[in-house]
């Protein structure tokens, strides 16, 4: 689903215009990016022109879009005060008014997507570790089968193995089920590695939007860059040596080796 905002005003932003393209993982970078996620998920009041898939959002068709968007918060909040995970899932399905024929199958499918084992359903939420809680949050988000999924700092606290698993999941959702994925992070390293399209905010306005690596390699913008980009730009600046754009240190090392030798 393509999302288009033009000249939108809200409590935190004024005259905001940007496009979230379909078929790409979009990153949001900069101050108040988490508030922008809330705005896209239609949780915050806004004035302006918003299109979802070329259909304009109006007050009367608000419900059409609200249920197709899912926001995954950075911290898990136990909204029902239920500790048992199976009960929590059931309550969540009731709360979101989902029409499900076979609840147990639906829950199991959702757990399967994120790679959690079924026996987690017998456990209590208060005994889960951070990464298990994060995966549970993702599983709950996939339960409603949303068209747009917004992630607030999804990579934080996940180690490399879990993070790779998560990236595989979102790429599959994007390619196979054509979901729109939006990720906010204040760490440029993650955005550079895992997103294709980037929206940079500065002073409550959109500074620039476009291809992620193009933006980070453009020295025009005064933003904090990923470490690896910073290094490649420094080499070009000081020694006038142009190294190719790389995402992993392993590739960069080989470039340096051939260049220095």
């Amino acid at each position: 689903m393509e999302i288009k905002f033009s000249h939108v005003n809200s409590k935190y932003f004024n005259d905001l215009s940007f496009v979230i393209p379909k078929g790409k993982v979009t990153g949001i970078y900069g101050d108040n990016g988490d508030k922008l996620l809330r705005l896209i998920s239609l949780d915050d009041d806004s004035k302006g022109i918003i299109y979802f898939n070329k259909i304009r959002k109006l007050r009367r068709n608000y419900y059409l879009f609200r249920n197709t968007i899912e926001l995954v918060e950075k911290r898990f909040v136990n909204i029902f005060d239920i500790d048992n995970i199976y009960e929590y899932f059931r309550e969540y399905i009731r709360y979101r008014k989902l029409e499900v024929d076979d609840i147990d199958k639906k829950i199991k499918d959702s757990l399967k997507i994120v790679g959690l084992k079924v026996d987690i359903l017998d456990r209590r939420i208060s005994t889960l570790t951070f990464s298990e809680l994060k995966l549970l949050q993702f599983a709950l988000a996939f339960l409603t089968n949303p068209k747009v999924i917004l992630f607030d700092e999804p990579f934080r606290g996940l180690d490399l193995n879990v993070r790779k698993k998560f990236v595989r999941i979102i790429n599959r959702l994007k390619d196979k089920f054509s979901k729109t994925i939006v990720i906010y992070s204040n760490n440029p390293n993650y955005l550079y590695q895992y997103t294709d399209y980037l929206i940079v905010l500065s002073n409550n306005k959109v500074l620039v939007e476009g291809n992620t690596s193009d933006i980070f390699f453009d020295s025009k913008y005064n933003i904090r860059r990923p470490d690896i980009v910073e290094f490649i730009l420094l080499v070009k600046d000081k020694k006038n040596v142009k190294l190719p754009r790389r995402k992993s240190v392993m590739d960069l090392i080989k470039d340096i080796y051939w260049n220095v030798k």
Partner: protein
Amino acid sequence: MSSLVSVDNLMIGPFTKFSMDIPLNSLVFVTGSNNSGKSLLLKVFAGLVNVKNKITYDRKIIKSDNDISYMASLTFNYDTVLKNIRYSVERLGYSDEKINVLVRDIAKDLKITNILNKNIKDLNEYEKLRVCLASKVISNPKLLLLDNPCLFLSPLETKEFMGFLEQLRIRGMTIVVSSSLLEEVIYTINSIIYVLDKGKIVSSGEVLDVLSNDSLLNKIGLELPFMVDLSVKLEYYNLVFKINMSPLGMVESLWK
């Protein structure tokens, strides 16, 4: 160095026959992959888990539970910043003048003087963290346990926060921090780092010694900070001979 807290022969969760000492007046990082038992270990140190006499405190220094401060999530009891910070010393029965001085000093140290009268809701993540830390350290605890404090901070904020922890250590606190990102560790000096995997210590010691073992850390799923990663990998190619944390210095040494 004498040890302030030690666990011996711990058998809980992922831990089997686990022993560890926290030296007095040190800054200790406990890091590791997901589900390695970092948070649980901190809870054990805080005395929140019943482990049947397997934990010993130095009772000359830690006289009561008030000398241990444990922070896991950012929870607040009151709406305004000032009330939240005052609360933790008010309950100890200090006089009003003494509390005012304490609040002023800690606010100055943690750079939150200008937000003291704000509402918690209007603060950003980093401000909330500093307010929470202020309320935990104002009573001058001897042992400070922080469970993943830098989780949602940007790299610049993390760097400043580590400076605050260093200041607190100089004031005489023993600090144990759990962390899921190795990048947080390099901003400190003189800290000790323990790497856990599935309830076992797989590596420990000074920061740079631990970080230079990149194959072990990558195997358990930890990512090295960029400059360390670059230095260590360039060492294999005999292009550099020590870990260089400054990008400029690295460029100059490579392209002579």
